[in-house]
């Protein structure tokens, strides 16, 4: 009787583990194996040792795209961790019609990134709506080359990722806010705390688990960015908005150099793993 009790939970885990084994763990191991070959999808792969790894160390575009991916990380993650907290606080009131606001913030999340990318591509055009608005209200004199300047293209794409992700993380924080007891705020009110102090000393510390989750999710998402780049700039102009994942895609499916792409993919995997580990260490402790 006792034996069966301890086995049952594990039995429930088995189907998910098998699924993950086939579609997650096995591909990761296989990509690692592929990175030591010159596989091109059509012919038999042959072993090339660590040539791919040596090549990527000497590949200026690998370093440039890695740098772009890190800029993406540093630019997007803090905003996607902090801003949604305040949006969640704002929509957490029991005002009439507040549900419409929550839905409005969530609509970008459920819209296809391809559609979002095309839409923003039009907004960002030289004679597009954004430049028109900014010029009309007098903020700028000349139109800005949002997507066609090597200085701005990457940041313009990042802005779209942030815009689309806000609602997603807002919902995570909303859920976290529900578990904060209201009397804590009442006590703080009595003690004379203002809005800012209340949230700084009560909400944010108690949201720590959500903040950890959002940081990890948004970090991984930022490192894996592909669709927005593909739809809006194709990594241009002059590779200024090319992220590592986009470069991997190009190497794998345009140049059919899957061995090299696998090597870069594996390096990316290790980086994300280390980032997540650091996240846990820094934010996981109490």
């Amino acid at each position, binding site marked *: 009787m006792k034996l069966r009790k301890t086995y049952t939970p594990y039995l429930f885990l088995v189907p998910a583990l098998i699924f993950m084994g086939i579609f997650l763990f096995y591909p990761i191991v296989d990509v690692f194996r592929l990175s030591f070959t010159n596989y091109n999808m059509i012919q038999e792969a042959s072993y090339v040792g660590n040539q791919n790894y040596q090549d990527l160390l000497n590949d200026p575009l690998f370093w440039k795209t890695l740098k772009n991916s890190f800029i993406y990380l540093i630019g997007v993650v803090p905003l996607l961790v902090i801003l949604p907290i305040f949006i969640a606080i704002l929509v957490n009131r029991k005002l009439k019609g507040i549900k419409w606001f929550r839905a409005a913030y969530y609509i970008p999340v459920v819209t296809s990134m391809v559609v979002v990318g095309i839409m923003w591509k039009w907004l960002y055009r030289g004679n597009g709506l954004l430049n028109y608005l900014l010029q009309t209200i007098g903020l700028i004199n000349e139109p800005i080359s949002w997507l066609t*300047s090597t200085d701005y293209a990457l940041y313009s794409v990042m802005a779209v990722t942030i815009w689309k992700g806000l609602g997603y993380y807002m919902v995570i924080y909303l859920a976290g806010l529900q578990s904060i007891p209201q009397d804590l705020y009442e006590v703080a009110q009595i003690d004379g705390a203002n809005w800012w102090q209340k949230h700084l000393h009560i909400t944010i510390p108690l949201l720590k688990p959500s903040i950890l989750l959002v940081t990890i999710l948004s970090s991984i998402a930022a490192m894996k960015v592909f669709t927005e780049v593909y739809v809006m700039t194709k990594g*241009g102009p002059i590779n200024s908005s090319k992220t590592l994942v986009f470069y991997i895609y190009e190497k794998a499916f345009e140049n*059919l150099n899957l061995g090299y792409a696998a090597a870069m993919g594996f390096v990316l995997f290790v980086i994300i793993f280390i980032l997540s580990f650091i996240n846990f260490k820094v934010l996981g402790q109490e």
Partner: protein
Amino acid sequence: MSKKLITLTLLVVFLFTMSSIGLAQEKQIEFWTMQLKPTFTDYINGVISDFEEENPNIDVKWVDVPWADMEKKILAATAANNAPDVANLNVPFSMKLAELDALVDMDANLSDDVKDRYFPTVWKANTYEGETHAIPWYLSTSVTMYNETIFENAGLNPDNPPQNYWELLEMGRQIKEKTGKFIFLPPIAETGRYMEYMVREGIPLMNDDGTAAFNTEKSVEFLQLWARMYEERLIPEETVTEGHNAAVDFYQSGQAAILLTGPQFLSRIEENAPEIFEKTRVAPEISGSAQKVGVAVMNIAVLEQTEYKDASLKFAAYITNNENQLEFCKLVNILPSTKKAAQAPYFTEIDPNSVKDKAKKVSAEQLERAENLVPPIENQSQLNEVINQMVQNALLGKKSPKEAISDAETEWNNIMSN
């Protein structure tokens, strides 16, 4: 009771065996096309059923794939040993597969009288190192579409459309000054298309040994032309990151005076921007100093992985024959790759008031002179990227045209020597 059961079981097994033997006589070939449904569903089904009637033991299964997905799907299918038998591909992609020996050589496997049907210049579009890895199917030559109202407003004569790239600088300036519009969006910063422009201008692409040959004074002047047009914003700033789709966009929305594309796009303009369609006129494609005309080739290839090579070759030859191609051309503004079909009166007897008809006539007339401008080269996608970067750097002023071309030459030679 059990005796009856045994007899019944034996009968069922017998029937199953007989039917599977019958099925085994049938050769099933899988045929993939690029985005022909739903517009051409009836046509293709018609060709397939005619073929199956003439060849009762061959069964053709038709799969239509969205344009953008074709490459990935075929690669994935080939890797999984599940490739189609016959596939409709475009030239760059079939070249990619041919480089990896994935396609059947048509030169070696088709009879001379079949091969003779096709225009030799177009047949060569798929020839690489002595092997031709696909049969040319339907073609498209680009025409110049232009907005006569923008021309008139700019003080330009709509009866006198530009014929070569060098005219576009002055025309562009006039259009910008009088109307504020762009002259057009040249898709020169993506997919290596600038190579076609260079060939039209008469600039050599590469030497016999594969090394770069485009670093010439003329080439610098040519790139300088586009850099100047970009600087003066005669062409939109989006030229540097966007391509043909944006070119159609800008024309359709009335922001650009000219569009260089295949006549089939007139239907799209008619649907999306009827007022622009009303003002659209057509002329032969704008070319460069070498007056060359390009042709976009869609082809039919047979994959090496096929189990039924003869049946696949038969089907490939059938769908690209004169009658079937002419019928296809009557449904949409494309051109046949076979000589006899191209001579049909359908292409010359037109309604002079219909701009679509006029486009058909102009594009058909160009067919004789047309050639696949950029021959199949290995490492095509990497070389395309080199050219893309060269153009982007020159347009944005990050490098002078001379420097950009010189750097591109070095990278090209690096890639070819690896």
